[in-house]
């Protein structure tokens, strides 16, 4: 565990604890948990469950960002893959549905990766193309409707539970472990960090930087596809218009809160997922607080700034100086 969770995770854990405490204040029953129909039930579970899509997105996004890229299309990819899954769900078995949806995500990632790694487009515009067109494709699949389904297998993916935990949470956990195993178990992690840290130097050291870049976008696409399937399964329908809308910003935010620099290089999967949880803890807190919705964005802005402040090297520097001053005075 210590290998997965470096020392620098302290600020994030602290932030999470503070926000949890605030949530407890605005909603006294926040930590209540009970077992119902064989699954855990309570706000904490909601945080995990609702945080799953962004957590999955951030797993892919963190790798993309580590290579100095960015993927704005993940929300649209979610919509596409959710739409595909929903339209196939009632006529095909789960394996086919999953294969089709994840395959589509993979293709989307391949396309982004192709634009960035092969054509050399700037990631933000390259993925902007799919962000715009992708939602169109998703709507094309559903023809703008909400395509509902009742296939119990797929519904289970969204609403079932394993050992009391919602299935999406288990999937996200599995993906975290899988991604961690692939990235840190092979040399991929090192090579991605090198590519993001200095692509020219890595290329000269014999690293296949193009392949690295291509593969992270592909993985990002697959993660987004999974998130899309789960989001569709959750509401038993594919809402191409709204699925994943603006989630790319949340995913990027999660990655940055997780301490990965937007200029590439070092990354941490666990902290990115923690970032997603921090965001969701805040969101759930807002919903529980009972404040009028006009305040939502303001609260979000303030919390984001506060969390970043906590992490800012300058801030900890200031805090350190303050501490030293206090000590010398004492």
């Amino acid at each position, binding site marked *: 565990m210590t290998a997965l969770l470096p020392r620098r995770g302290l600020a994030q854990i602290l932030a999470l604890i503070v926000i949890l405490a605030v949530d407890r204040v605005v909603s006294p029953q926040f930590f209540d948990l009970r077992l119902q129909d064989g699954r855990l039930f309570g706000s904490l579970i909601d945080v995990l469950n609702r945080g799953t899509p962004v957590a999955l997105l951030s797993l892919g996004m963190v790798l993309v960002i580590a290579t100095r890229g960015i993927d704005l299309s993940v929300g649209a990819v979610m919509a596409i893959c959710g739409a595909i899954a929903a339209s196939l769900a009632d006529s095909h078995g789960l394996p086919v549905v999953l294969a089709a949806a994840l395959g589509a995500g993979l293709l989307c990632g391949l396309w982004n990766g192709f634009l960035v790694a092969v054509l050399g487009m700037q990631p933000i515009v390259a993925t902007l193309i799919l962000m715009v067109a992708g939602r169109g494709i998703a709507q094309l699949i559903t023809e703008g409707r909400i395509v509902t389904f009742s296939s119990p297998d797929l519904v289970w993916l969204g609403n079932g539970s394993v050992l009391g935990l919602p299935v999406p949470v288990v999937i996200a956990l599995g993906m975290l472990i899988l991604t961690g195993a692939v990235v840190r178990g*092979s*040399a991929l992690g*090192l090579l991605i960090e*090198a590519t993001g840290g*200095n692509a020219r130097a*890595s290329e000269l*050291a014999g*690293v*296949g930087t193009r392949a690295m870049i291509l593969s992270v976008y592909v993985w990002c696409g697959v993660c987004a596809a999974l998130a899309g399937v789960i989001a569709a399964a959750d509401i038993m329908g594919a809402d191409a218009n709204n699925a994943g809308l603006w989630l790319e910003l949340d995913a990027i935010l999660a990655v940055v809160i997780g301490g990965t620099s937007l200029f590439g*290089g070092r990354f941490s999967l666990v902290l990115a997922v923690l970032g997603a949880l921090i965001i969701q803890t805040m969101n759930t807190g807002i919903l529980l607080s009972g404040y009028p919705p006009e305040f939502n964005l303001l609260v979000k802005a303030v919390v984001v700034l506060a969390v970043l402040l906590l992490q800012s090297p300058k801030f900890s520097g200031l805090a350190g100086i303050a501490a030293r001053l206090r000590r010398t005075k004492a």
Partner: protein
Amino acid sequence: MENSLDPALPLLEVRGISKSFGAVRALQEVDFTLRAGEIHALLGENGAGKSTLIKVVTGVFPRDAGIVRLGGEEVAPRSAKATLQAGIATVYQEVNLLPNLSVAQNLFLDRQPMRFGIVREGEMRRRAKALLADFGLDIDVAAPLGNYSVAIQHVTAIARAVDLSARVLILDEPTASLDRHEVEILFRIMRQLAKRGIGIVFVSHFLDQVYEISDRITVLRNGRLVGERETASLPRLELIRMMLGRELAETTSARAATREHQAREVCASFENYGKAGYVAPFHLELRHGEVVGLAGLLGSGRTETARLVFGAERADRGQAKVEGAPVRLHSPRDGVRHGFGYCPEERKTDGIVAELSVRENIVLALQAKRGLHRPLSRREQDEIARRYVKMLDIRPPDPERPVGLLSGGNQQKVLLARWLATSPRLLVLDEPTRGIDVGAHAEIIRLIRDLCDDGLSLLVISSELDEIVTYSDRVVVLRDRAHIEELAGEAIDVGNILAAIAADGAAVALEAHT
């Protein structure tokens, strides 16, 4: 002003400066005195704290303790701008100019000639041209600086600092990427400035240059002051002892005993190899256990040759062969696959991955060569890193330190380690000893010889002709992006190389190709 012309009065006085980076104590109570009108060499091993001292003086790093006086008044500049305004101009060790701006903008950034709030572009270019002309440079100053070679960039940085220096000029290894011709120009200008009463701090690992130009020497070791001497009264061996804290094992300036030129096997060969607009087609044969030097003026096409040989650039004609078999060299990956290695000359942009640790930087090429699926275990990585940190005496000897925090010379050693770790058959080194101290220099040359004895083939670029002469078995001389002559055996000496370069009176190769 009269004071500062009096050579006895200190112009810049540094007292009791200390600076730590976390656990690393880079400077401990260092004193340093610069008088007006003197050229003062600041010397020490890699990582001794020279660059740190300079950055503390100019306010780039906040200092932990100590005072700095300029012309008798205490100064505590908190930004580079304030330092400049106080009359201290600096060329930092890593070229600190902006490749995306034009040469002229770089020279006059933040002090452009203005009229009605508008930059007088024409006037600025005129002045830039005039300024560079003093350094024998005649280039298009409107073109982005990044279009030019490192050497030209370095000269531009120096020109800017010279133009800015009202009272003090600090040069941190300015000559590392210059060749003799430019060094002479630089020295002439430094002497002129000194005559005008400007104090100059000069950092270099080339002791010949130090003896040629400096009036006094201050030596640092492990972040502490070792002593300050008059250059004229300090014997070279004594200086080396001050720097290293021990005797240098062997002297390196003599030409190595000619190695027996028995017919060794060809390691790699390049026939009619070249690329249009890059380097003219050349023939090159590299044998096992042999060192081939590439000599030439700046811009003569040495780096280009190196990149073609390694595969960093794709040739558009000719055939490359490794151990007699034709191969395709289309990318660095191809080069690495065939057992080549390449230490580029631009260490910051092409070499290190600053954020990653020394360990990760060292294993990078080896890991890339092995491929994704055969990751080096952490234990293997530690093992490799430890071995090379020890072998090359990388300081501080902490493999987990981000390489960007190492001193320049130590970064260079990390790069060398990166390629040695891949056990290459051919190593291409572009300015491998740039910025490396005398002790390490000797080590690296010894290492080069040892490697060759083990059958490694080396292609080395160096602007130090003495150095090339010292270890090369053959020397290829380049001019105007073409190979013009090959010297071997007894024919290798500095005079012959210079003669080859200067043939047809083509001495001024620095003139722009643009």
